């Protein structure tokens, strides 16, 4: 498939991605042809009412789930054609994940959790140590490096999860409702950090959220409705406050389920 890069800066390119569930006779189409291009260094938010297909889109783009039709290119590689083993390797090398419920391994300490993605030997110990120190400093979790997940707070867990997502220096980080289980203070602190990481380190982030506050940290917000892209908002030079108001307006038109948040 021919692909035209915008100055070589496209990280992710989804073309007419479809996803349907169910067996014959009872097929439910969740994604009905999504076209989406994400450039390097973008911080894209995906919003939309419940059932719009946000998480399905994220899973499909993040190679956790397979699309029923369409092509998805990440860094020029078409992931919809990859075999499972190659996909796994791809995820390990190129992608990072942050989940709503952290998904840390209870049996491992914070540091062990963070180093897990680069544990299959390609990165030398010295370099791994260096990367860990750097990321732990940015995320402010050096102090708790040797604690177990049950000993730290939700915010700290999510920072650990974020650090784990960044340790392999991914082309792209996928975040699924990362602030969903956090109190507002921890949430804004995490979002600030994500914004910093995005701006200073140029990490491309795609974040699914239903929270307008969270998405106001993004540089662009894509609205889904019934499995298609309904509209897109660019932040441009607007302040976060102003961007937030814009997002609320679209949400109001969309009839979203979360207009109450401020």
């Amino acid at each position, binding site marked *: 498939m021919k692909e035209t890069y915008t100055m070589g800066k496209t990280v992710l390119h989804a073309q007419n991605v479809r996803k349907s569930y169910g067996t014959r006779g009872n097929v439910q189409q969740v994604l009905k042809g999504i076209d989406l291009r994400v450039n390097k260094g973008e911080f894209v938010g995906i919003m939309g009412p419940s059932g719009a297909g946000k998480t399905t889109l994220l899973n499909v783009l993040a190679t956790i789930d397979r699309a029923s039709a369409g092509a998805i290119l990440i860094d020029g590689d078409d992931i919809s054609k990859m075999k499972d083993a190659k996909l796994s390797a791809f995820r390990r090398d190129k992608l990072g994940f942050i989940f709503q419920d952290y998904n840390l*391994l209870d049996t491992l300490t914070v540091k062990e959790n963070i180093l897990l993605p680069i544990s299959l030997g390609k990165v030398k110990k010295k370099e791994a140590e260096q990367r860990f120190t750097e990321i732990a400093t940015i995320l402010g979790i050096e102090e708790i490096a040797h604690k177990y997940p049950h000993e730290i707070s939700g915010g700290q867990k999510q920072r650990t999860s974020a650090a784990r997502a960044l340790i392999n220096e991914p082309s792209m980080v996928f975040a699924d409702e990362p602030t969903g289980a956090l109190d507002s203070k921890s949430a804004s602190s995490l979002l600030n950090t994500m914004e910093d990481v995005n701006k200073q380190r140029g990490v491309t982030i795609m974040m699914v959220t239903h929270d307008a506050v969270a998405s106001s940290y993004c540089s662009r917000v894509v609205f889904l409705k019934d499995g298609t892209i309904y509209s897109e908002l660019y932040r441009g030079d607007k302040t976060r406050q102003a961007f937030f108001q814009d997002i609320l307006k679209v949400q109001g038109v969309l009839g979203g389920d979360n207009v109450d948040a401020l």
Partner: protein
Amino acid sequence: MLTLFDLVIRSMRKNIKHYYLYFFALIFSVVLYFVFATLQYDSAVVEGAGQSMRFAAAFKVAGILLIIIAGVFIIYANAIFLKRRSREIGLYQLIGLNKGAVARLLIIENTILSAGALVIGIAIGMLVSRVFLLLLMKLVGHDGFIALSFSTAAVIQTAVVFVAIILLTSVQMLYTVYRNTLLGLFNAEKKGEHPKKPRTAISSILALLGVGLIGFGYWLSGNMLNDLIFFNMLAVLASTILGTYLVFRVTISWLLYQIRTRKQGHLGLNNSLSIASLMHRMKGNANSLTIITVLSAMTLAMLGGSYSLYYSTEKETRYVMPFDFMFEEESSIWFDRYDLSVQDFEKGLKENGIDYTTETIELLDVGGTYEKGVFPAFLGQMEGLYNASIVNAEQLQKAGLQMETPKNGTLIFHSASLGTVAKDTKIPFKIYVASGDKERVFTAVKFGEGDVVNASFGPQLVVNDADFTEYKRMMHPENEVRNVQVFTITNKDQLALASEIRHKNKDEETWSYGFDYYSMYESSIQSNGLLIFIAGFLGLVFLISTGSILYFKQMTEAEQEKQSYATLRQLGFTVKDIMRGIMRKQVFVFGLPLMIGLLHSIFAIKAASFLFMSDITIPASIAMGVYGLIYLMFAVLTVGYYRKTVKAAL
């Protein structure tokens, strides 16, 4: 309207995944117990037992052991099963069922399940008991047609035992429902400990102590043949068991902790899935791993020992009965009154066309003393030489025994009964043989294998022809010269027939002693066959129980760690990567109890090897190998279950 019974049926249908584990445990126990009970009541077995009460007694003891094993196993399986369902039990209470109703629900379920298992188990038991009966009969050397009759008594006995066990499990269920809080029920499945930093000083002392205790136990087991032998045996047991517990409870966690600390957070995937996961549950697992290890060791020792006995029956019998038949001339011993004469025996052999060779051997009855301190102290002050006979090597060679001729003044010392302890006795040593006023000194230069004449009461001193003739000439007239006539049957297939001829005067009242290899072999193989059967049966039950418990435990762990596998796969690890770590964990979970158990049993068998006259390395290794193989099958099953879980995780 949904009645409680409807609810039971629905929940059972929905929970079939959880049930089958418990259900199989139940069926399995019923089958084995029923088989055992059937054999116990079977007429062929009872008749086969013949005069001896050994069969009945051995079966009774084994039966009790079997009940204990089955009971513990079922209660354990039920506990795991209840833990897996605790959320459901909590849910019933949450939606408003009172505790009584929930308890009733569980007990109805349990009754249906157990009744089903009992019926299915007895049915399967009927099918397989024939196989076991044939095996038993083959082992005790009984051939011919065997009819297995259906035994009502066995059915009743099985039913009674299992109703009792089911009552126990019901109590266990009541306890779970009444003694747990809702919150506890909801969190029961998640419960795992969090690894704590061990207090280094105490831990390292205890860790070393564990290894030290086991080492001490091993050392003592090799050096316990002295006056305090009984006390020593207890000390060996106590020290080894306590050591094993410490190893599982402290040493392993301590070692794992050291390894983990050294990694400084760079744990890697394999270690994350093995070391970290093991450390997370070591405390809870220590008890069960200790029990499994100790019991495995006992089973292995029992199996190794009894198989060795069975395996070396022929050799050990030959040690005491080197010749096929033996007659003593002019014997005045009372039990020979009814006995067959040599002439009648030879006539019988000829009539039946049995080829044989015969020789007469002279035994010079002597007494005397040994050199001081030759034999170990626990045998008492063994300085006197009693019931000894001086035998001529040449006569023995002529009669067909393979042996060397000792030099002048030396002798080869034969004693089957002393032979096992004498293995470590220093050689050469002096023997002072009395002869009236004089004393003759011989040097024992070698321990010969077994005895050189049948059913000898004391040691035989084999000397060369010159020494023999000289000693005989100068021997005090009080000392007796016994002439024994030994027979060797050319074709060993005719031994059974020859033995029948030999004992044809034998009836219930009189029992001919007969210095006869074959009848001794037959009775040994019978009791050793019974022993290996019972040991094997119990061993199998035990092996399957412990294997299943480990398997059940790992199944639960796999369920608990499902989320971790999902996360790992999302992070980009393949099923293969993850399985590598899990297999490493299984090497610990299954390998450690097996290895430590094997080691224990090796030392136990070594310590008990003085009971055997022959070398038992081969039979003991075979028994252990078979045990290990069956045990490994459970590890394979477990890995298979993990693979399924990991694959389904994403």
